[in-house]
């Protein structure tokens, strides 16, 4: 909180101190949010770029990602193929760009479904407590007892490989952190006086939960979603690498890294560039998450 207000605290000294709180509030508002946090700026730029690439890969990619060319196998990066070609002669830049779509989709869907489901579980467990809380939290303990990736692999092994089963597996495991975060916040919020006031006013439980508690407990789990998008993309890429996720020929980074593994001594570019793409996107979402948490923390209540 302090570092963020430091620059305008200095600025406050210049004008005659009018009512202190009022001027501080005006000052704080007048600083646009994008000047407060470098992490947030970078994060937004990178994520916006990734979204653009993910939605319109055709506009950017120089070649069709699936066009094979036996004459151009394993070409090193050159002017015609900036990132080189793979063992089927496909342009790697185009495949990396088209893969953004699959990986972004895994990241977003793999975050959105658990976010909704976990939030619901957390709200119910925290608000009602008692037996409902015990049952739901024991379920959480069971899921937490297994490492994330191991559980995802186990579920996919059971359901069979493929993108929809991947979503299913991530959803079955990924709701747990949201349930825990939300439950903790609800336990605090439900004892605040405005919730008591809502009960005294005779509001229904659903109205209290959705209108009076939910909006006040969401901020930390929204911050968590930024990190979760990265987790899910990495999980998706890992499954691709193991051949359990997105199936060829649809381009996907993890699967591309895996395919290039065989040629790593002769043609390093096959695995390296999809790897860089993953790091780049991961960094973008992490920065966005950090920046968001800074922003929500300074904003306060």
């Amino acid at each position: 909180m302090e570092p963020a207000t430091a620059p305008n605290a200095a600025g406050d000294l210049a004008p005659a101190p009018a009512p202190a709180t009022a001027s501080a509030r005006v000052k704080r508002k007048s600083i646009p949010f994008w000047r407060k946090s470098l992490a947030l700026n970078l994060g937004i730029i990178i994520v916006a770029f990734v979204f653009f690439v993910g939605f319109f890969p055709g506009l950017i990619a120089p070649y069709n990602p699936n066009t094979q060319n036996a004459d151009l196998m394993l070409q090193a990066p050159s002017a015609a193929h900036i990132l080189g070609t793979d063992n089927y002669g496909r342009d790697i830049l185009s495949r990396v760009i088209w893969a953004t779509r699959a990986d972004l989709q895994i990241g977003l869907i793999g975050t959105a479904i658990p976010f909704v489901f976990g939030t619901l579980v957390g709200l119910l467990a925290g608000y009602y407590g008692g037996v409902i809380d015990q049952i739901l939290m024991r379920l959480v303990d069971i899921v937490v007892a297994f490492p994330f990736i191991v559980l995802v692999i186990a579920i996919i092994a059971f359901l069979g490989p493929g993108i929809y089963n991947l979503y299913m597996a991530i959803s079955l495991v990924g709701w747990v952190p949201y349930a825990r975060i939300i439950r903790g916040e609800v336990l605090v919020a439900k004892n605040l006086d405005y919730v008591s006031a809502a009960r005294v006013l005779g509001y229904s439980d659903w109205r209290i939960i959705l209108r009076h508690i939910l909006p006040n407990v969401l901020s930390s789990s929204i911050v968590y979603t930024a990190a979760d998008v990265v987790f899910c993309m990495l999980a998706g890429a890992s499954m691709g690498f193991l051949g359990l996720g997105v199936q060829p020929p649809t381009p996907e980074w993890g699967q591309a890294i895996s395919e290039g593994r065989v040629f790593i001594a002769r043609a390093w570019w096959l695995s390296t560039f999809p790897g860089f793409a993953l790091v780049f996107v991961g960094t973008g979402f992490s920065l966005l998450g950090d920046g968001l948490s800074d922003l929500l923390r300074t904003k306060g209540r």
Partner: protein
Amino acid sequence: MAVASIGEQPLVVIKDLYKHFPLKQAILDVIARKPALSVRAVDGVSLVIKQGETLGLVGESGCGKSTLAKAILRLEEPDKGTVLFNGKDITHISRQEFRGHRRHMQMVFQDPYSSLNPRLSVREMLIEAMTVHKVCAPKDAEARVAELMAMVGMNIAAADRFPGEFSGGQRQRLGIARALAVDPLFIIADEPVSALDVSIQAQVINLLQDLQENLHLTLLFVSHDLRVIRHITHRVAVMYLGKVVELAPTQELFERPLHPYTKVLAAAAPVLDPRVRHREYAIEGEPPSPIHIPTGCRFHPRCVRARDICKASEPELQEVAPGRTVACHFWGQ
């Protein structure tokens, strides 16, 4: 609807109300069959609140005032006992059924910083209360928001702002407006000014007093501040360790306190008169823990007049003069 003057009609009748909070026991104590301990916050309170009056509830911190207030409105479910509202039992009906009655009894909370939902604007907050209970036709809602804001002395222009933009005193006014939005008969004000600056306290107190008179509200005013109690209430109930020890009209209570605890309280209140310097006596010791309540009269360890009988038997509340009840073996001395 209500009577203009203070009627003798009871609006809220509290009969022998109990609320204990059990303490967590260590597993070894459970095995050893040690008796389970509990905090006896409200330990058998009977009280009648008459229509149109302001009843003060006063006592030290931790004596169970707030718990009693919450138990009446079932924010804490009472363990035992009954609350009658307008003659109807509201403790032994389902929560669902009780929700329909809630609009008649409202509460103003102590901490104005946590009592307003930070994500709702003032207008949204008031309209929500009105629409849930269908207090007025939807087309009249806007007019009623303006009316409520005027009632609590706020500018209607403030209706689109959020709680974070208001000061403590303003927030407390908004809390009062929210309570009034559903047109209640009975309001419990739980230490409504103790979190405010002294300069603001008087404004909010006067506002509550005016509203009580103009709207013929019945008010239960919980406070530890005797000056405020003396100013605003018609009758006062003094609570000590979960029980009412004295009940009297305000004027009489302050002029001639009967229970030794009331005497100490009244003497301990700061007097705003520079000529009055001495104090008769100060209370000794901390209040005993509400977990281990003393036998006999619960006040005897701190009482200057305590005798053997006080340790042995607990005095009942007895009516000693019209409208005055006290629980003390030696009230006449």
